[in-house]
């Protein structure tokens, strides 16, 4: 016996190739026991391939995948202590809800007594609040209910890791936010490691303890949601997670960044060599005002998108181009909104600007 592993999932230099195409290249990743990890990235970034390698539906071309401390390479899916909630659920259409949920239990050897199976199916259905639906056919259920059946079916065998492949993608917005809370609660209560694959950054940020941002087959950043948002590791992460304004500039020897309109910005990074850089600035880090005070830049509002509690403005700044600015509303009056065509002054705290090599 090995000592109790602290990581439920571990990738050691994992590469996956399909013919000439490299889907995942040299990934190292450790998912601590009981964590809720989101693999986040655009389609084709390799996140689903990673999930499928954990599930046992793909084998790595190089490197090792460890589950609960044991190398899982070559172990077929049906022998792995992980279960998956598939995209669009993959529920068995010829079974009713009970038969779907009982499927995993019926595969156990030695066989479980029928009473035990029906007791555990009942528990699982209760957990996802579907107790009254035991005899329903799958096609008689709504998307949200099917989602819960898929959850119950995957959790009934008490896996050590639950894999979720874009589980909320097929649901409407309201249901999605309700399920986000539900999934989070479920994960806390069960203490099972959850690995979620999503292309929706909001989903990743709101549910998980750790976000693993991926692009082109490699990991760009693995950190808490707050860290990923506040301190993106590179320009890709800054761009992909949340909205970002990108300003071209040149890092000078003195440590200041000179923007294209000639203004200078103190750099927070001492590790960069002088040269071309890109400054990333969150829309909500920019202040917008009608008064022309000691503002950094002046510009004209060209477009406004009303969001209810806030408004998103496109501000055209001479010599810099268009900046996206999000401004919270503090009162429910027209005065709180700036109209397109108005001249405004914008300013920001240099500390909120992230500087990356261009």
């Amino acid at each position, binding site marked *: 016996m090995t000592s109790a592993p602290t990581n439920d999932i571990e990738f050691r230099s994992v590469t996956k190739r399909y013919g000439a195409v490299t889907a995942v290249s040299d990934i190292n990743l450790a998912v601590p026991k009981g964590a809720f990890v989101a693999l986040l990235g655009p389609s084709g970034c390799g996140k689903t391939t990673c999930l499928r390698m954990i599930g046992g539906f793909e084998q790595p071309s190089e490197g090792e995948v460890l589950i609960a401390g044991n190398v899982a390479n070559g172990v077929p*899916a049906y022998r792995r202590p992980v*279960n998956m909630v*598939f995209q669009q659920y*993959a529920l*068995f259409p010829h*079974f009713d809800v009970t038969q779907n949920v009982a*499927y995993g239990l019926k*595969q156990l050897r030695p066989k479980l007594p029928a009473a035990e199976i029906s007791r555990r199916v009942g528990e699982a259905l209760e957990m996802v609040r579907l107790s009254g639906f035991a005899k329903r056919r799958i096609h008689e259920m709504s998307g949200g209910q099917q989602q819960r059946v898929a959850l119950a079916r995957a959790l009934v065998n008490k896996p050590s890791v639950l894999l979720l492949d874009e589980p909320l993608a097929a649901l409407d917005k309201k249901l999605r936010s309700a399920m986000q809370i539900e999934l989070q609660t479920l994960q806390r209560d069960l203490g099972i490691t959850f690995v979620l694959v999503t292309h929706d950054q909001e989903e990743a940020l709101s549910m998980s303890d750790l976000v693993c941002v991926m692009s082109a087959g490699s990991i760009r950043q693995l950190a808490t949601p707050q860290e990923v948002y506040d301190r993106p590791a590179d320009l890709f992460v800054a761009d992909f997670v949340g909205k970002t304004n990108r300003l071209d500039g040149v890092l000078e020897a003195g440590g200041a960044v000179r923007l294209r309109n000639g203004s200078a910005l103190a750099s927070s990074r001492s590790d960069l060599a002088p040269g071309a850089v890109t400054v990333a600035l969150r829309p909500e880090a920019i202040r917008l005002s009608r008064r022309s005070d000691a503002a950094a830049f002046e510009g004209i509002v060209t477009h406004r998108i009303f969001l209810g509690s806030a408004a998103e403005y496109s501000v055209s700044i001479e010599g810099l181009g268009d900046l996206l600015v999000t401004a919270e509303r503090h009162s429910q009056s027209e005065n709180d909104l700036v109209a397109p065509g108005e001249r405004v002054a914008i300013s920001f705290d240099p500390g909120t600007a992230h500087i990356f090599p261009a």
Partner: protein
Amino acid sequence: MPLTMTTKRRLVTTALLAPASVWLFVFLVLPFIAMVVFSVGERGPAGGYQPAFTLAQYANLPARAAAYWNTLMLAPVGAFLCLIVAYPTAYYLAVKAPPRYRLLLVSLVVVPFWTSLLVRTYAWMYILGSRGIPNLLDMIGIADVRLLNTSGAVLLGIVYGYLPLMIMPIYVSLEKLDRRLLEASADLGAKPVSTFFSVTLPLSLPGVMTGVALVTILLLGEYLIPQLLGGGKVFFIGNALVDLFLQSRNWPFGSAIAVTLVAVVVVVLMVAMRIAWRISGTRQVDLV
């Protein structure tokens, strides 16, 4: 008064359905009515039909019990043998075959249809006849093997001739089977054999039932294969009908046999569909 949209649509629908409806009425419904009428009539003095109302022809059915027995035994057995050969083939084509070659392999299944069944069955007559396999066996010392004009030869011909009709519907149902269901089954701990019997087979059952029903129904009316490979020894209802209508000119008796055959086909079809629906849990009719 201008036509409303709904009326126009109805007219279009009617116009589009008219050719098929007229065709079916003239060539299926009318002949069937004629056949039912004939079947309760009497044979004319010089053969043919003479109006009457009697169930004598039906009472006489046992006289052709051998043809019924051969048909009702060999048709399902033939369909079953087709299934045994067709399922693994269809499974390979739909699931295992490299996608690049799939289309080529599937078209190979249909290629035999480019040659007339008559010609191909003649070929089997020679292969199974005394100058074929028995001749070869004789050369290595196994004498007096008779293959032609046996039930075995008829079954072989049936499997050979009807295999593509069985492979196709099964292939279609396996091909549209969602692969993620198989992954979900494995994910939940089911070994491949278990996955096959709990997921793959039940979900391909509509295709299996379509194939079985199709082949069985066609076999119930089969004439050519028993004629050529069964000789005069293994004959089907189809052969009996040709005999009665063309040789004995006993139309009423032939009609009674034909009507009974249609009744059997309808029952077979209904039972098969019921079973398929029950197991697959859907109401889709998967006729190829």
